């Protein structure tokens, strides 16, 4: 019978990503309820030393495939390795991050394992001994409760939503043979072009300061950038601002952009169209600064300031400077 709550730990450049601890902690909760173990799969090159960190976040066993061919993430190599070990051990539940890599890997595993998955979940629990996953659908206009009727029951978890909680367990390392032949792989990474701006990626930022149609132009983003720099925040944009050419596509938050869940999201001159809300409504705190008191963003905001953003934002920066 299928058993155990499994996760795939995500690492890059020799370090585990924060979301790995989030999913480990979420897995621990489910496993405690079921009275089962948490097992992690860690694939990479020179990554065995990272296993102990997973133990700190409640992982009982870490299955490690450590090989030079896993130096770069490629779908075919990683999904073959994970599918093999998960199948051999008859996992009951399998959790991944809904990060860029996790989205790709988890979906490929759905195919390899011929199972079902609830994507980009914001809540998971056990009901009647099975995984019950809750996720936004239709840009967050609807929430779906998903039950997976095949094994492993898969879910991918939205980054920054689940708390990483230290809870030390054995973290025993089990090496496994991934059974992947390097020369059979059909894809490779030719080049990794790093963003050298030094700014946090939107999907990983703790704070995002975002500007919309009310910014009126590309140069005007300076007021937002100043506040963002002070707070160590990333700069985001609404679709209107991206379509107007004021900001690059990679800054877009929303239904056709990025989904973010920072601790603090400051929306400046953003009306709060459903398309934008879809990308940021799982933020922990939302601030809206907009001169239109009727803007729908205020219905979602924890704190609202009805005023001209060009008057308020520089004052916020000045005030924050006093205490930071």
């Amino acid at each position, binding site marked *: 019978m299928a058993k155990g709550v499994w996760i795939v730990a995500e690492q890059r450049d020799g370090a585990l990503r924060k979301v790995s601890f989030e999913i480990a902690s979420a897995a621990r909760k489910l496993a405690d309820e079921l009275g089962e173990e948490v097992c992690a799969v860690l694939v990479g090159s020179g990554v065995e030393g990272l296993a102990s960190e997973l133990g700190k976040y409640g992982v009982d066993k870490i299955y490690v495939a450590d090989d030079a061919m896993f130096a770069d993430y490629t*779908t*075919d190599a990683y999904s073959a390795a994970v599918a093999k070990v998960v199948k051999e051990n008859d996992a009951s539940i399998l959790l991944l991050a809904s990060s*860029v*890599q996790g*989205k790709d890997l*988890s*979906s*490929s595993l*759905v*195919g*390899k394992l*011929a*199972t*079902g*998955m*609830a*994507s*980009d979940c914001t809540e998971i629990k056990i009901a009647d001994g099975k995984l019950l996953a809750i996720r*936004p*659908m*239709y*840009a967050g*206009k*609807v*929430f*779906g*409760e998903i*039950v*997976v009727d*095949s094994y492993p029951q898969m879910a991918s978890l939205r980054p920054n939503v689940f708390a990483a909680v230290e809870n030390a367990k054995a973290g025993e390392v089990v090496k496994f043979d991934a059974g992947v032949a390097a020369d059979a792989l*059909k*894809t490779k*990474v*030719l*080049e*990794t*072009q*790093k963003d050298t701006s030094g700014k946090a990626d939107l999907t*990983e930022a703790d704070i995002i300061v975002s500007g919309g149609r009310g910014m009126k132009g590309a140069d005007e983003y300076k007021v937002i950038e100043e506040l963002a720099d002070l707070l160590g925040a990333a700069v985001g944009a609404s679709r209107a601002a991206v379509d107007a050419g004021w900001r690059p*596509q990679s800054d*877009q938050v929303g239904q056709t952009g990025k989904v973010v869940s920072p601790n*603090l999201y400051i929306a400046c001159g953003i009306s709060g169209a*459903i*398309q934008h809300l879809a990308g940021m409504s799982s933020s*922990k*705190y*939302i601030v809206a600064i907009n001169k239109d008191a009727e803007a729908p963003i205020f219905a*979602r*905001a*924890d*704190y*609202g*300031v*009805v*005023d*001209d953003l060009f008057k308020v934002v520089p*004052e*916020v920066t000045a*005030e924050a400077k006093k*205490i930071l």
Partner: protein
Amino acid sequence: MNIVACVKQVPDTEALIKVKPDGSGIDEGGIKWVMNPYDEYGVEEALKLKEANGGEVTVVSLGPARTMETIRTALAMGADKGVHVTIDEADAYNTAAALAAAIKEINPDVVFCGQRAIDDDSGQVGSVLAELLGMPPITIITGFEVADGKVKAIKPIEGAQLVIESAMPCVVTAQKGLNEPRYASLPGIMKAKKKPVDVKDAAALGISIEPKAKIAKMTPPPERAPGKIIEGDDPAAKAAELVKLLREEAKVI
């Protein structure tokens, strides 16, 4: 070159979505249906590839009878023929299985999908389809070219972008930024009416309608407690109050 573009019909992004009283699904009344925006990038890239290399673009879609309108839209953009697999509802795995069954017969060099559909937001079908076709998936890409029989794609990841090379055939999923989809021209719309669309029943293709991932219930989004509007006329005073609340109450700065 033999090219496939998969499309899905979805509610317009502005559509008001209401859950049926029994939570079994959404109320489809009054919804305007459109082509999934990410699939438009896939269709556009398929057409560009055909224009550069010759060949044929087949648009494949799964869904109820109304899906035919979306297939016609892709044909009006310039696709050559269509395949409509009829089914009322399917989860990601069954959708991919049905598409795979239809696409196998076409024997394509490249299959384009949108990186996700904006209705269920699952983002699984392209990758599962790749797996079932035995092709590598290249997902969520913003750049695509074919040279020397190989695909070279640009994939943004957190804090970087990758240049990925893949053997062909492969399945590619399109992200916004890949291209600017063309509009269907009036002559295109006229021509589309005469282009062939093969209609197949999912059951006849041997596709299960029993979902692996089942939606047990749909609910409206959770209510958010009403927020605090910081009152006053002086922007500086309001800014000071906001900073104080963020520091002392929310503890986020």
